[in-house]
């Protein structure tokens, strides 16, 4: 049983507590805390990070503190691209030259294969030592594998499906957003975009070319159209031992898909969006050409800050939430814990790697690396809010909104990409182009689900 509803402040449910306790017990039984095996001999650890600024800063900050504690340890870095982390990195992590700590997106084939082939070191010991399962909270449930082990540690949480707004453009277009930030329905989003267009702006900037944004909106809308139990089943039913109780041809799914079609046909996006990637769409928004941008909480401290410093972004953004497809319901922002870290079994310094990973998910590591160095939210819920000093104000506002209205898991960020994002995205692009129907996508998804259950991933 998986629980996918946040808010982050929600107390751990009885189920999660039982699971957490079991995990702790299992962890204690299966392996002792890694620090027991540490020595003082010189050691060099290699850590992978993605080639964007924030992860690099995070690991550098963590490494600085860690090497202060352990002067015999030297930490080197190995950069990989966004494209490589979910695909070709599998060969790196399973090779003799594997890094000691690898970057492993949880919704990628890399993670699926590494776990299936026992190519990652179980983290139960370090998780048990610091009560990490409980500190991560309900999202830790999805980390636990069928064999009872944890193989990956999330380092931060971000929220995507944030509609960043340009207040200057919206004002010129005569648009007033609802006080609670929630767009009421798809029609309202289309009307706002039309007003923006009349005022000389595109409605919503999005990078349709990149392989993930087309399915983001589905992640936001689908949970508002199905029950929590159904959402749990959609997320877990690809596993052979999970009974299918929710079908992809059900009405909530079809409504969500039809909404995506309606939005595309309604001219909400900028012209040529299917040929633009997220970076291009972001630049489109920050240069003041659109009223809104589909993005996430990493943007204010990243592209927005950089473009403001460069003088190309001349407004302070606001935010809103995508509409629900069911009257009276609300969509939410979508949390992503997915870019986790693990220790490959090919690592030559496993004990030290485990200790460094343990430090990275400790309260101190999370504060130094995630909050202070990269401006993201920590993956654990035990870092006091008073430490959130480096997070941009607007991102804290998004967090307050999440605490008030909750946040539901996105299907494509929870299931393996081969069944989720990689499969769904081209279908949504076809839907946006009017080359398929919501009903057909529902059938395709259902057929794929049965195929995955039969053949595995």
């Amino acid at each position, binding site marked *: 049983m998986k629980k996918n509803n946040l808010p982050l402040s929600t107390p751990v449910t009885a189920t999660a507590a039982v699971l957490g306790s079991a995990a702790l017990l299992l962890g204690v039984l299966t392996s002792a805390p890694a620090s027991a095996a540490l020595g003082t001999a010189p050691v060099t650890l290699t850590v992978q990070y993605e080639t964007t600024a924030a992860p690099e800063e995070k690991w550098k900050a963590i490494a600085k503190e860690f090497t202060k504690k352990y002067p015999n340890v030297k930490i080197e870095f190995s950069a990989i691209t966004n494209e490589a982390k979910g695909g070709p990195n*599998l060969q790196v992590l399973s090779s003799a030259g594997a890094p000691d700590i690898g970057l492993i997106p949880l919704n990628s084939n890399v993670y*699926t*294969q590494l776990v299936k082939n026992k190519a990652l070191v179980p983290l139960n010991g370090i998780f048990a030592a610091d009560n990490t399962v409980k500190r991560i909270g309900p999202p830790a449930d999805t980390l636990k594998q069928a064999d009872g082990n944890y193989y990956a540690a999330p380092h931060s949480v971000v929220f995507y499906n944030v509609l960043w707004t340009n207040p200057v453009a919206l004002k010129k277009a005569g648009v007033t957003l609802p006080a609670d930030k929630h767009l009421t329905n798809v029609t309202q989003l289309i009307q706002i975009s039309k007003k923006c267009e009349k005022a000389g702006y595109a409605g919503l900037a999005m990078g349709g070319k990149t392989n993930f944004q087309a399915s983001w909106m589905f992640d936001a809308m689908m949970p508002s159209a199905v029950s929590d139990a159904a959402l749990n089943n959609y997320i877990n039913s690809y596993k052979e031992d999970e009974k299918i109780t929710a079908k992809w041809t059900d009405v909530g799914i079809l409504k969500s898909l039809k909404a995506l079609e309606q939005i595309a046909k309604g001219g909400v996006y900028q012209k040529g969006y299917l040929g633009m990637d997220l970076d291009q769409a972001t630049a489109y928004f920050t240069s003041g050409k659109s009223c809104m941008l589909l993005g996430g909480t990493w943007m204010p401290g990243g592209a927005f800050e950089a473009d403001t410093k460069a003088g190309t972004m001349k407004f302070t953004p606001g935010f809103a939430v995508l509409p629900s497809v069911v009257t009276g319901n609300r969509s939410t922002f979508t949390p992503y814990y997915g870019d986790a870290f693990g220790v490959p079994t090919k690592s030559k310094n496993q004990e030290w790697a485990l200790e460094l990973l343990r430090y990275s998910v400790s309260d101190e590591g999370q504060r130094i690396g995630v909050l202070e160095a990269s401006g993201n939210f920590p993956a654990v819920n035990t870092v006091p809010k008073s430490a959130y000093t480096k997070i941009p104000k607007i991102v804290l506002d998004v967090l307050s909104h999440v605490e008030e209205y909750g946040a539901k898991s996105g299907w494509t960020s929870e299931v393996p990409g081969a069944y989720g994002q990689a499969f769904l995205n081209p279908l949504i692009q076809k839907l946006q182009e009017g080359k398929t129907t919501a009903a057909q996508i529902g059938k395709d998804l259902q057929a794929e689900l049965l195929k995955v259950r039969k053949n595995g991933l």
Partner: protein
Amino acid sequence: MTSLKEVQSKESQHPKQGRVFRSKKKKIGLDGTNIRSAKFALIPVFVLLFLFLGLPVINSIQLSFSRWGGLGPLEPVGFQNYTDLFADEQMRYSSRITVLYAFSVAIGVVAIATVLAAAVSASVRGHKIYKVIWFFPGIAPPTAVAIFWSSGFQPETGIVNTILGKIGLGGDHAWLASSETALYPVIFVGIWSAVGFAFLVILGAIEQIPISVREAATVDGANIRQQFFKITLPLIRPVMLIMLTLQIIWTFNGFTVVWAMTTGGPADSTSILPILAYKEAFRFGRFGTAAAMAVIAGIFLMIIGSIGIRLSRSEQR
């Protein structure tokens, strides 16, 4: 050096070696000892070829008959990957557009390169600078080229649309955003980036034509156009055919430009075979199917290559 007569004499004395000496090799005067030495000297080459070409090919073929997610042991599945591929609509579509893409680019490249080479060879004004300028795209990194043109084809802000807008042809075409049109900019960029190299090769071939042939044609009253179609083109045809064959193979196997411009989209409309194989392997974890695609594409290209070489040889004769 062993004379031809001596070789023929030895051939009659050694019937087993006679089969070898009946081949054209006897004309270069190799005797039995030299052939053995040559074979011995070739061993390292064959070892290297086996290691770096043979083994990967054998491995790919083996993989194409297996199920493999990228890690762990192979699971033999017989012809399943092939039957799945032949039944797959996306595979059929990707095969069609790959052939269209490869042939369009190759024909475009050779045609434009020939015209440019003929112009430079005819010493049009500024021919020396053109020789450099036209080669520039050929040395630009493919990723940089693709990113440049990907921006260039954007509606409103792209340079192509800006130019079209200024000449009244509309400045907001979104070619890359539609599955109906996305392949055309990709073909254009493929031609643009490859024409420089073909231009140099074909220019070299044109300049190999003896000046006396042209002078004779001029004396006979042939104008420049007639000289181009009746003398230049027939004489450089073997080079053009080789260039065409190579360009088809290179473009067929091309990945970078298409990936950087469209990532195979929208809606898989520009997923040529290398991109489809990449997605199969690294996004879906179906390395067996990807290997089967590679084998099918490899066989197709071997046929194309053989035809190209045969045609080129017959032209040379």
